[in-house]
């Protein structure tokens, strides 16, 4: 321990003697570590933001989307002519044991009028289980009930964007009467704000009305009985894949799809999307990280270079130390400690700089960044390892000098 402390003191003195040179050598490591930390922060921040957006759609949600139909050789993509019916949805909730709650809906973009204000928005005819399945609470009033659905009552629940578009500041939308396609609706509730989807759609720009009301009084007679989408939850989050498979099997049966035909629907899980986007952002983070690591590597080579110069310059000093009794390991340790000190001090400065840069990025570019302590600690420790790795060769060169040659060196 005493030996280490003395060696550290000697190393620090040697580094202080060449302040500019030490600083420039450290700069490589500083930039490398700062780059690693900043890049990882940006990458993880982006990842967390995407995950959060996906989570906002509802957790453990399965989406059954109509589509991929084959009609006389013409294939329509998903979301085309609907092949799903309300009866399919009811069958799913009855016959798939792994499925918990379901909801289904049809939507149309229509104008909604309140007094002299109007607004074009998505009118969504859905079942009363919609808030529960979507994990979307009502912030004021209440959602419509099964009774409203059965008697096709003219009640509506508004999203936040619609509320702000139609109603002035301080106006209470509850119990107000709005018109959709000239049909009057009483507003009974307001949904809480949910924000954008991962693809930038405003989820709050919506009006939800009972499915039966929508079909009978608003949307018209086209495609009666079909739905635009079915959402389902699993009874438990680890049964999501099972639920998806049960839905698939059931729908193939109901749609009489033979084993050599493709599905005329798609079951998608938000987990799949989350996983896909996570993979994408992981690839991005790794890419950034490897570029940043290269600069750390270059920094390490800088340390090695300067240490080789230093060994040559101080050949005589090494000879003197050997003459008074320094063993090979003393000399080795001295130069290793010098290299490690350079890289660790650089690593520390780089960590501070990296954190600062990450904060600046999120401040000025408004990119979300997420500082990860393991990444900071990892970059710092890695910089230490770089010092040991690149310091070893020059240190060994110094330790292997012949004392007589070293003493005579001019």
């Amino acid at each position, binding site marked *: 321990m005493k030996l280490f402390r003395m060696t550290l003191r000697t190393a620090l003195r040697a580094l202080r003697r060449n302040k500019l040179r030490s600083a420039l050598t450290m700069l490589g490591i500083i930039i490398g570590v700062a780059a690693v930390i900043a890049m990882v922060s940006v990458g993880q921040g982006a990842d967390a933001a995407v995950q959060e957006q996906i989570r906002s759609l509802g957790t453990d949600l399965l989406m059954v989307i109509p589509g991929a139909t084959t009609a006389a050789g013409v294939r329509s993509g998903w979301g085309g002519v609907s092949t799903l019916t309300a009866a399919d949805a009811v069958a799913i909730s009855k016959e798939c044991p792994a499925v918990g709650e379901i909801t289904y809906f049809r939507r149309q973009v229509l104008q909604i009028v309140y007094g002299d204000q109007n607004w074009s928005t998505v009118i969504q005819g859905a079942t009363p289980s919609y808030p529960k399945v979507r994990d979307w609470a009502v912030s004021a009033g209440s959602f419509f009930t099964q009774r409203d659905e059965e008697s096709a009552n003219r009640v509506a629940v508004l999203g936040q964007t619609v509320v702000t578009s139609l109603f002035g500041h301080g106006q209470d939308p509850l119990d107000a009467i709005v018109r959709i396609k000239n049909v009057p609706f009483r507003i009974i509730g307001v949904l809480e704000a949910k924000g954008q989807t991962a693809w930038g759609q405003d989820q709050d720009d919506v009006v939800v009305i009972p499915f039966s009301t929508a079909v009978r009084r608003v949307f018209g007679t086209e495609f009666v009985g079909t739905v635009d989408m079915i959402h389902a939850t699993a009874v438990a989050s680890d049964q999501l894949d099972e639920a998806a498979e049960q839905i698939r099997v059931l729908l193939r049966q109901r749609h009489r799809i033979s084993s050599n035909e493709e599905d005329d629907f798609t079951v998608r899980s938000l987990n799949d999307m989350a996983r896909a986007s996570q993979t994408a952002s992981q690839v991005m983070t790794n890419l950034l990280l490897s570029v940043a690591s290269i600069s750390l590597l270059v920094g390490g080579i800088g340390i090695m270079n300067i240490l080789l110069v230093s060994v040559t310059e101080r050949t005589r000093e090494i000879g003197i*130390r050997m003459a*008074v009794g320094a063993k*090979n390991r003393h000399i080795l340790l001295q130069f290793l400690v010098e290299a490690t000190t350079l890289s660790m001090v650089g690593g520390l400065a780089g960590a501070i700089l990296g954190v600062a840069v990450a904060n600046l990025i999120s401040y000025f570019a408004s990119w979300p960044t997420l500082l990860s302590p393991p990444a900071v600690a990892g970059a710092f420790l890695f910089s230490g390892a770089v010092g040991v790795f690149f310091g070893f060769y020059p240190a060994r060169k110094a330790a292997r000098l012949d*004392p*007589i040659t070293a003493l005579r060196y001019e």
Partner: protein
Amino acid sequence: MSDTLIQVRNLWKIYDIGDVHVEALRDVSLDIAAGQFVAIMGASGSGKSTLMNILGCLDRPTRGTYLLGGVDVSRLSSDERASIRNQQLGFVFQSFNLLPRTSAIENVELPLFYGDVPLAEQRQRARDALATVGLAGREHHLPSQLSGGQQQRVAIARALVNRPSLLLADEPTGNLDTQTSGEILDIFRRLNRERRLTVVLVTHEPDLAAYADRTVTFRDGRIVSDVSQTATPSPHTGAQHTDVNLP
């Protein structure tokens, strides 16, 4: 009868560098008693520096044995030789060889650092060693702030600080003027007399060799003369070990 500190038998040092074959030492045998002050003289290339390097455990002989205090040190590993240099030997060089930009006292402490001496004791012993060579009060001067003679005295203090049994001085006054050279040699003689420190001094100048008890002269890798001076009073009364004794 004094103890034999150094016993060299049939020592050869041969350098083979490419086609060049140099016999730097040829069958040298030499005994030096503890407490003796020996001057080694000879022209450049006579082998005296090679002998000094071997005596100083910086180099190993090609053939032959070198017993230091009864231990054969000629076959030791480089770490073991480093220990011997640290514990038993003190070096004084022609070019002082102090660490630049390092204070006098820190230069003197250097051997203690490698000798695992406790920190507090290091400082005290270094202070004492500097006082011995008359440099008390200059502990924190840098080598560049000291004269040549003072620098060499710092080097002597460094050589003394680990309480060696043998002091090796390789042309210690080569870079100094005559008066300063005399002062340095006085220090060696005082250490030799007062502490019975064995001193081996390599020099060109017969004047300086006169400070020693005995002068060994080299030519072409061989000892050509080995004379005990009676002119300089020696503290030893025992018989001198001499291999060759020419007038």
